[in-house]
């Protein structure tokens, strides 16, 4: 399973109605609010064992699955 598949699988737990694969403005379009954002941080911790610091909780890091994956990879380096 690639990291992207693993991420999409994890995000499905947060909200199965959102098309995380296609959306690129999750925050700006209001698909994700602060509650969903904290859930995403928890599932990223579950799936990839990363602890996202508050300084990285910014719209640009969570607007798309791609951006989230890049963020995770920055932590894994």
């Amino acid at each position: 399973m690639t990291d992207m598949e693993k991420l999409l699988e994890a995000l499905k737990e947060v909200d199965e109605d959102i098309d995380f694969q296609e959306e690129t403005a999750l925050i700006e379009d209001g698909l994700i609010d602060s509650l969903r954002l904290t859930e995403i941080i928890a599932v990223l911790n579950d799936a990839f064992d990363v602890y996202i610091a508050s300084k990285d909780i910014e719209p640009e890091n969570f607007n798309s699955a791609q951006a989230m994956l890049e963020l995770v990879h920055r932590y894994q380096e």
Partner: protein
Amino acid sequence: MSILSFEFLLLAAGTLIIYYVLPIGVRWLALLGGSAFFVIMAGWQSIIHLTGIAAVTWLGGLLLERLEKKKMWLCAFLALELGAMLWVKYDAASVTVLGLSYVTFQSAGFLIDVYRGKVKAQKNPLKIWLFTGYFLQLAQGPISSWKELGDQLLTGHCLEPVSFVSGFSLMLWGYFKKMVLADRLAAATEILVGDISDFPGWILILCVILYIIRLYGDFSGGMDVVRGISRMLGIELPLNFLRPFFSLSVAEYWRRWHITLGGWFRSYLMYPLTASRAGLKLGKFASRFLGKKTGRVLPTALATFLVFLLIGIWHSFSWNAVIYGAYFGLLMAISILLDPLWRKQNRRWKLNEKKWISPLRMVRTWILIIPAQFFAFTESTSKSLGVLKQCFVNWDFSNAFGQLTGIMPEWEWMIAWLAFLAVLLVDLFCEIGFDPCKKLAKARIWVRWPVLLALLLTILVFGIYGPSGDSSAFLYTQF
């Protein structure tokens, strides 16, 4: 100096003229001069406080970029700034300073952003002083981050006719909301703090609802004035109100009401708590008992409760403020914990696709919001409970008209309702994507100016003026 006073209008006009006369590179000096004048007029206590906070923010920023043990130093600087706020707010009752908590939150936010490596410290202390004390947002916010405001203040802007007129319209609209609507309702809402024994319950409930409308007109009107004048200077301040009357849930209401305060607490308190190792561990631990989904959001529910409790206490150090904060905190925490259940039901009954559900959700939101307001208009819990009790005991409609006109003459009620209807309509237009201020700025000249002139005349004729000719004070300048 109230932003409703003649002196303020002169200061704003003077700042605008000097701003656009100066060479583009040094236009920020006009803002600095205007702000300095504004603070000096507020008295020595404000000058000392603001300059002290600016000094800590300036020096703190520079040191945070250079020193080791950054976390310890950040805590020390924050303790200084927040400590000063708490001391002035709760202990030194004789000290009154301008925009106490707005200045503090904005400066503390800047220091945390420097610590997080998001913004650079500023070498020039005057630039930090301007960011901390920009006169248009000093008295009651919005609370901006450096990213939102700093560069906008320092970069000179060219005169843009369209945004200039749009800003002018927004300013007029703000004065309308404050002077024609909010201050007119003051007479009706102030009966709540007087002797209420003669009033039937329905009048008291009406007055509590009018109190929310007054607060909205007062606070969001003030915001429109400062955002409007800022826009005339080419500066776009962050939104503090986004038509809260149309909220579908209490959570949405708090995303639309006093936005920058909620945003501040979210960035600097809620996320650090929920995303911390302890927060995530608590979530995992709770998942074992509450199920995966509910357990995972438990830390968020707890942090949200804490944030609302603090927002309550921020309003005043009283039991009423605690009740107000705890009420919303509890409501939000419960809705977060029940969120998985709600979503399941919504999906099952396809509720989100049904058109009739939105108005019902708006009504539900207001039914939940109104009870909290009984604890908002006064600091005395016994007074609040007295009004609440009276709401249930006496429902006499026999002399309804006489009762209402006893509070305020008939024609004042008429103007108040018409003004409220106008505010509601404009908000509704904005809600469907038609911003009257921006449209007006682009409208033909023979549409634009008659409309603005009519608005100006309405404010002059129907606005409420205080004893000294100034309008009455803003409710949210006391924080």
